[in-house]
């Protein structure tokens, strides 16, 4: 059976690529600290020696649109082209191409459907920065095949937070039962408190530092019950109008396991939003 080499949850900040590659007067004052934290975080994946990456993210109205919106979707294709014109325009993100693991994608679709998740699928998926940001931060050589899993955290009506947790638990169980000798890392990205296009955007910190503090505690401690007791589709409006992206963190808490304390936790308070990075090693930390 396959090994879950690591479970990793992270924010996906589209400004990291430009901040980390800029020089001279264009380089923001926080870039060096940010790069140092990312390079330390990257080591947590490198040490896990993965063969394939399950990448949980959310399309930002690029390929998935309101005329035909899936709640959960698995990408099954030999390749995934990546990043879009408006991400190149606004964030300076590069065009990329990642290989896909079609065997694992087909397996997750079959097993997921049988486990009660009516997963949509795509055989031609151009992925966006919710998946490429963690590739850039965690595996910049982009040399491993991926299986993208997209969630709807963007267009109401959305699944409830508990459904994200349940899908994370199911992903973990399915990967562990995959008849393969491969080492799989399950990586997912979301947001802490975030406001986009509203009065609280682009402040000196995230829009709700108190929510961020609690959220980091829930994730780092694997406190699924505590998180589910407080977080609802309605409550997520209060910390910021784009905070439903936190449900992808909740999915990753499900994948990490109830009560599983993260083996690695870090965060960085930036303008506009707080960065947070978590790694679990289900089989114990690699030496």
């Amino acid at each position, binding site marked *: 059976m396959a090994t879950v080499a690591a479970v990793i949850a992270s924010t996906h900040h589209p400004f990291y690529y430009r901040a980390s590659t800029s020089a001279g007067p264009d380089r923001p004052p926080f870039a060096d600290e940010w790069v140092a934290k990312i390079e330390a975080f990257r080591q947590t994946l490198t040490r896990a020696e993965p063969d394939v990456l399950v990448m949980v993210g959310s399309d930002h109205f690029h390929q998935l649109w*309101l*005329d035909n919106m899936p709640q959960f979707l698995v990408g099954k294709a030999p390749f995934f082209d990546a990043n*879009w014109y408006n991400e190149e325009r606004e964030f300076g993100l590069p065009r990329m191409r990642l290989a896909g693991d079609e065997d694992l994608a087909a397996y997750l679709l079959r097993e997921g459907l049988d486990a009660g998740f009516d997963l949509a699928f795509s055989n031609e998926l151009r992925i966006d920065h919710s998946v490429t940001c963690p590739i850039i931060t965690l595996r910049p050589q982009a040399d491993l095949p991926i299986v993208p899993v997209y969630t709807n955290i963007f267009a109401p009506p959305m699944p409830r937070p508990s459904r994200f947790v349940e899908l994370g638990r199911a992903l973990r169980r399915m990967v562990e039962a995959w008849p393969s000798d491969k080492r799989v890392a399950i990586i997912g990205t979301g947001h802490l408190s975030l406001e986009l*296009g509203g*009065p609280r*955007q*682009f402040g000196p910190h995230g829009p709700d530092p108190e929510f961020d503090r609690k959220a980091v505690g829930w994730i780092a401690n694997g406190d699924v019950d505590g998180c589910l007791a407080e977080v609802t589709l309605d409550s997520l*409006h209060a910390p910021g*109008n784009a905070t439903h992206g936190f449900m992808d963190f909740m999915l990753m808490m499900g994948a990490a396991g109830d009560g599983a304390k993260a083996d690695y936790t870090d965060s960085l308070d930036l303008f506009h939003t707080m960065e947070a990075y978590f790694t679990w090693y289900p089989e114990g930390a690699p030496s």
Partner: protein
Amino acid sequence: MSKYLLDKFLYTVDRDPELVERYRSDPAGTVQWWEREVANTVLNCHAAEKSTWLAFTEDERRALREHDHVTLFRMGAHPFLTLTLFIAMFERDHGPLEYQIGYARAMDHITLPYPDIAT
């Protein structure tokens, strides 16, 4: 009122570099052309397979013509779509983050709960 059609406008313009420039320089003409030619296009389908029922209200046309991001927010247009397109059109006229912060300050009078964005 059609939040879906407002979102469709923002979405289809934002993803097309030529339309971004056209909407920046000629908003009234672009909104008129778009409603006539694109509003009833079923995306991802053959051009002949059009819808027959999608149209803006006059208030929606006006908000789009006037690049009025505050009114679009109040109408329940998806704030991510509005922000992304408006940054593409207007960030270039401002210093670093100046546009994004001014965009927020223009909405300071808006309090929770925000308008529903469900379509």
